Structure formats: C-alpha cells, structure tokens
C-alpha cells in the first residue's frame, strides 16, 4: 500500500481544519467531530484518491456526511454562550428551522466562505440549486429575524441571491 506523500498529509491536515466548521450546521457541535473523524479516516485510507481530487475538502465533506448518521436535531450553542451578545438571539433557532439542505448551503457559503461551485460539489447538487437554497435560506432567516419587513422582495425569488462571498 503506498504511503501518503507529505503533500497529501498536509492536504489532509488542512482539510481537517476546514471540515469541522463546515459540518457544524448540519451535524451540530457534537456531530461535527464524528463527521470530521470519519472523513479524515477515509482520507488516510485512500491517500491516492485524495491526492487526485480537485476539491478534496468538498469531497471529504460528502464522505463525512455519508459515513455518519444525522442526529435528530443538531445542537448549536446560543450566541451568548460563545460571547456574541450582539448577534441576533433568534439566529440559531431560525437556522435550525431551515431544511437541512438550505442550512448546509447558506452555512457553507456565508459562514465558511465556500464558493457556489465548492458547495455544489460537496452537496452533490447543481450550482443553480445551491443558489436557490442560499436565496431561500436567507429569505427565511430574514423573515424569521425581522418579520416586520426586513427581507426584500428580491430575496424571495429563487436564485435572486447569486453573489458569492469573496472574503472568505
């Protein structure tokens, strides 16, 4: 069995760092650890494949999801618990109320800074679908956090939000 090259090792270490954050929205704080462990274990079992992947983090993200089982409801800490008193207290329950695909898409794009292409590959869906999920998720979050009218009408149109993060 070939031994992982140093390059592959570095790649896997980097992937591990990014994966935990990516899993939080769909697996919760507890389940993210498990998903990361499974994804990285798979990576070490298949170093050759990892080395050939164009988007190893995205692929490993899928592996981690596939090899772990979702909890009935992911657990996320309240903003105050992570010392963010100025974050909308309703953000987390609103996030949890999203469908899992929407939550994953909006989280990966806006909380993790992934491109639409990366998210599409990680979730196994098309880029346009990612855009739709993100758009609808943002609209739902805005509606939940500012039911008086914070959301613009454009946000309710599928695919209306097509801008990708660039700072992330």
């Amino acid at each position, binding site marked *: 069995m070939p031994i992982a090259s140093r390059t592959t090792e570095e790649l896997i270490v980097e992937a591990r760092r990014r994966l935990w954050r990516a899993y939080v929205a769909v697996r919760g704080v507890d389940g993210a650890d498990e998903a990361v462990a499974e994804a990285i274990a798979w990576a070490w079992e298949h170093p050759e494949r990892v080395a050939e992947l164009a988007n190893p983090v995205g692929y490993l993200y899928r592996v981690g999801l596939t090899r772990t*089982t979702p909890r009935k409801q992911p657990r996320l800490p*309240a903003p105050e618990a992570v010392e963010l008193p100025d974050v909308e207290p309703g953000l987390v329950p609103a996030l*949890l109320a999203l469908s899992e695909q929407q939550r994953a898409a909006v*989280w990966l794009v806006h*909380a993790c800074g992934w491109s639409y292409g990366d998210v599409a590959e990680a979730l*196994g*869906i098309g880029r346009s679908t990612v855009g739709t999920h993100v758009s609808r998720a943002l609209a739902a979050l805005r509606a939940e956090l500012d039911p008086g009218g*914070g959301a613009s009408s454009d946000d309710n149109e599928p695919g209306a939000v097509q801008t990708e993060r660039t700072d992330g």
Partner: protein
Amino acid sequence: MAEPVDLEDQLRRYADAVEAHRRSDGGGSIMDDPVRLGPTPPGRPQREPFVVTGPDERRWPVRRLLTAVAAVVLAVAVVGAVLAAVRRAGFSIDAGEERPTTTVDGSGSGRSDGVASEPPDVSEAADRCREAFRAMDESLFDPNEPDSAVAPVAVPDGIEVAVSQLILGGTARRVVFEFGGELRSCVVSGSGDVPMGSMVVNQDDGFPVEPDTIQPRGSGGEAKDWVIEGKAGSDVTGVRARFADGTTFEGLVVGGWFVVDMSWPGGGPANLEPLNDVVFTWTLADGTERSSRSEFLTPAGLGGGAPCAADPACIPAKVAEVQTEAARRQAAGEPFDQGPAVADGVVTEEEFDAAMAAFANCSVAHGLSGYVAPAPLFRDWAIFSLEPNTDPGAVFGYNVLLWPGPGQPAVTPPPPAVTTPTGGNPFLIEECRTTHVDLVSALAAVQDEKRRFDENVALTTATTGG
C-alpha cells in the same frame, strides 16, 4: 425601526465564535444550554430531512416511491416469513410459548433456557424498522459510492433469513431481515413502542456502524448486553467472540459486515468486563482462521493504572513525560520516523502485537484510554483504533494506526498513524506515528497479557462452558 440584519456577517461571526470556543474549551461548556428548535410548525415535517449526500435531488421522488413500494413488499415478506418460520418450528404464534430465534450465538442471546418469552410484535417492529430504514436509505446510501454505502449488505445465496429476532436481555429486539435483496438490521425496545435511541439512523445505537465499534447496550438490571458490529473485510466469512469467562458468541457475517449480539442472561460473572480481553476469531474465505484481540487500556498503558480522568494533573504529566522522552531521543539521534522494526518478509504475530502495544502505549501516554481493537478491516492490513472511554473529563479522541497484519508482507516504514482528535481533544498525537516505548518491554507486556489471558480462559472455560 430596527436596523437591517447583516445576516451574512452574523453567520460568519457566529461560526468564528463557535469554532474558537470549540478549540478553547472542547465544546463542552458552550453546549450546556444548546439552542433547540421549538415546536414543530404546522406543515413542517417533524423530523429534519436527512442530508442527501449522493445523487441529484431530482432522483429522490422516484427513490421515495420505490422505497414506499418496497416497504409494502417488506411488510408482507416479514409477516410471511415469520409465520412460515413458526409453522416450520411447530409453534403456535399466539401461545406465548418460547419461540425459536434465528440468532447465531452460542450461549447468550439465542439462548434456549426454557424461559418463556413474550412473542415479539413483529409487525410493529417491522413498522419501526421501515421508518428507520427509509431514513437510513435516504441519508446513508449513496449509489454513486458503493463503498460508502454503510447500510445495505448483500444477502448471499443460500441465506433465507427474512426476520431474525434477537432478544437482547428482554429489553430490546434486533431485527435483521432482507430488504430489496439486502440484509438490514435495527433494534427496537422490548415493548416495541420506543425505538432504542434513534435506532439505525443513529450511530449511538445503530447498525451498521463504523468498523470496530464496540458498544454496550443499555439494558438496566443485571443483564449484560452488548453488540459488536462493524466491517470485517470481504474475505471474512465468519466471526466468533470469546470472552475471558469462556463465553463464546457466534456472529453473523454478510457482505463484509459483521454483527455479534451478546447477552449474559444472568449478568455474567461479577467481575466480567466483556469488552475487555475479547478474542475475535475470524474465519476467512480460504477456510483459515485468524484471531485478534480487544484490550482495555488505561493511561498507564498495558498492565493497568489509574485513568487520567481521575487526576487532572495526569494528562499534562504524561504529555511532559513523552515530550521529555522525545527530546532525549532526538538528542541521541534516535529515529522517530520508523515504527517498530519488522524483519524482512512477513510480519510476525509478535511484531504485530509489539506494534499494537507500542502504539497504544504512546497514545495512552497522551491521556487516551480505551480499546485497541485490531480487525481485518482490510485484506492485508489491520487497523488499531484507540478510543477513549466516555468518562466525563476524559480526553476524547481517536488514534488510529494502520499496520500490516500478521502474515502479511512487511512494509517499512509502516503507514502513518492517523490521529483524529474529536470533542475538543487538544492533542494532536503526531508523535504516535512513531513509537517512544521500549519495544522489548512492550513485547514482554503483550506476552504476559497473552499468558494471563490464556490461563484465565483455560480456567473459566471448564466452569462456564463456551
């Protein structure tokens, strides 16, 4: 009017904060009061939809339809199979008599101790299982990645198992049945009304789970119930687990997956630690057998010692000890990039055990404690996974080493160990890719353990049977 919420910024900052706190406190305190989803709004499914990890979403409506059809077929098959089995065995299904089970163990879960048991409500169990399997099917099975499909296993020719009821200490039923040409399994509570945990869709209590998962089955009372399940490798055709008290349980192996259900009806010997010193004997496709062992290790390494969880100063002390040793070896020019030396040719049993012991000792020196469970996960490789116990405050993490199995060609240097800290484990046990222990003493410890274990088995087999 309130200021517009910058959602993108808030999501990013929230993620930053969660990640930062996870690193600083292991994710513990921030989850003391987790945010929970409120009551299910009208029109929203009660359970969050599962992640579709494989095919395009557009295929799922068809899949769901097929699943629904298959579920109906399954219900008919389940009832028919059970009735047929009952008829074959000559029992009346409504007589409340003991009914034969298609368990595979030798002395525990498939016991025939003359104690009448309540006929399980198969239809209800199957109903629960269908629900679980639907979810599992949608969440786990990726047809584009057959190797990642942890759920289904193929039913080989000649196996007619449709329903297998395993009575787990009277508190749970494991239901294994064919479904769409695949063998599946789940567990429901003894009363049939509450699935145990989240059943198949929850790794805490599910089948299948990842390789080498060894988990106690909460049963209450005096009964000791466990299930060991995982991936055994495509060349494994049978498995049996023998414990230190001599009790042996036969497992079921299908399509590379194995499950061993165990139950000590009377609770087993008082000092029995069933997850310790279990010997797995794997029957390979060529008829040969190979054994591997699971051992419980404490931070003191082989031979016992107080767990670090009981002493807050223990872990840093152990780490300091290892670091000191590492510095000494570096100063002495002793290599760290090699595992235990293996002779040219094939790996011997002793070298294999020495590698396991060295790796385990290195890991436990970092505060991990748990089980070393070698298994023929791969055709030519064994995997050692060292997990911590679940004591509050214990360091939580995994440390995994791939190593050529006994009789396999030696590869030097060996593949790297893999460390996948979880749960806020602050340690990256990169050092455990190498070994810091004295291999001679490690090997001696293994041999001592073997002697002790063999003597123990010899003594207990005669009295407890096997």
